[in-house]
């Protein structure tokens, strides 16, 4: 398979994943109705793919998927997508660093990004005189999402076979040659 069609295949996979996860959050009770705030799994997957292969997760897919989810979820449309787009560009620009350093660095960086995204989102809601949630719930939401993140990384790695560059194909399929030369 050529590199080009492979990238598009993975982009398709990424879009399907985001849509599936956003739809799954809306499954009627009782499967997913827990009385606690849910983790933002969509954000986790976006960050995990961006940290691994930013070329598989272009900004337009991220924005479209989150905007659609926002429309469905009766949130103020556009705001969360704008915040996530900004944050995702920061994560994208760091992906070389994620490759060089340990997972702990990636995890803490993305946690900090998510926390600042949620807090700035709430701040803008407040400035627009829209109802916000209590700080306790917000912090809980952030904590749950941070804890879920490594799980989504595992899924990204071992279910979707999306690895960081230089680690991937050569490690799994030695016949293909180094992926670093390809990229």
């Amino acid at each position, binding site marked *: 398979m050529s590199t080009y069609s492979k990238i598009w295949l993975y982009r398709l996979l990424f879009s399907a994943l985001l849509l599936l996860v956003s739809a799954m959050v809306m499954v009627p009770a009782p499967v997913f109705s827990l*009385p606690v*705030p849910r983790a933002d799994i969509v954000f986790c997957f976006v960050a995990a793919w961006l940290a691994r292969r930013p070329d598989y997760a272009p900004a337009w897919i991220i924005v479209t998927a989150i905007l659609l989810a926002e429309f*469905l979820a009766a949130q103020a*449309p556009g705001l969360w997508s704008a915040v996530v787009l900004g944050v995702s560009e920061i994560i994208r620009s760091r992906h070389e660093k994620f490759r060089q350093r340990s997972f702990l660095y990636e995890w803490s960086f993305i946690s900090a990004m998510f926390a600042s995204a949620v807090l700035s989102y709430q701040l803008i809601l407040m400035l*627009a005189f829209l109802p916000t949630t209590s700080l306790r719930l917000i912090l809980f939401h952030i904590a749950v999402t941070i804890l879920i993140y490594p799980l989504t990384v595992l899924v990204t790695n071992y279910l979707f076979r999306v690895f960081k560059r230089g680690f991937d194909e050569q490690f799994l399929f030695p016949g293909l040659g180094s992926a670093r030369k390809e990229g």
Partner: protein
Amino acid sequence: MRRYRDGDAEATAARSLRRLLVGVAIFLLVCLFLVWRIENQRMERVRSAVMDVVLPAVEFGNKPVQYLSQVSNTLRNHFRVAERNSELEQEVDRLRFWRNEARRLELQNSRLRNLLNTQLVASEFSISATVLADINSQFQHTVLINAGTENGVANGWPVIGNGGLVGRVLSAGAKSSRILLLRDPSSRVPVKIIDSDVRGIVAGDGSFRPLLEFVIAGDAQPGDRVVTSGDGGVFPKDLEVGEIVVGSDQRMRLRLAADLLNLEFVSVLREIPLSEPTDVSDLIVGDAPPVESN
């Protein structure tokens, strides 16, 4: 060397173009948010239209998960069929008793009504619907149902199901509508306590037990049953809401009669609003025959 520098310049140019595009996109998204904030009604109509298009896909995507939960339910029920059967039989017995009681009371009621010669407002009926999706976050608690304006649903109508009041229609699309649940932070419902007629407001705060506000602690006891008061005209009178409990924060809360966690079917109550009487002759209808209630 020169080629390398060219490539570098190209990369820089591409990067700044990208930055520009991202900036424009963020600007447009924020504009969308502002338009929504200002022109809320129109944007909500757009949202309903989007929903009508996307909903079949959501339903389709949810099929596997729903199937799994059904299978687990079936398995669980399978192992306690006998137990469940006797439970249901007891329930049937109880309900039969209540049905007879209801018939007797209805007969009595109609006789009394005849005696008093009162006119009933026989304008209430309901539209049944299935819950399609549960759109919950820590910020909002709504469900999506598969009935919309095409089925006669309109904004603001009360919704009951699973044993009590569930909420009201927040926005009705053509084929689907969104229901604002009682636990949503923006939900406010005027209520009264059945026995004492003390009035208050049930205010959602995101938890499963919404707050009971504007009721003085001495006026209400834990265990008192609460129904809608009909004040404000949005909800009809005497719909079962719940029972007073004292929350862990020592404030008065309601244990809702409707189980909001396991909503499957709901009914949208349709009621033609009563206009305020303008003339005394509107209040008592003299010689008109009484309207049948069913």
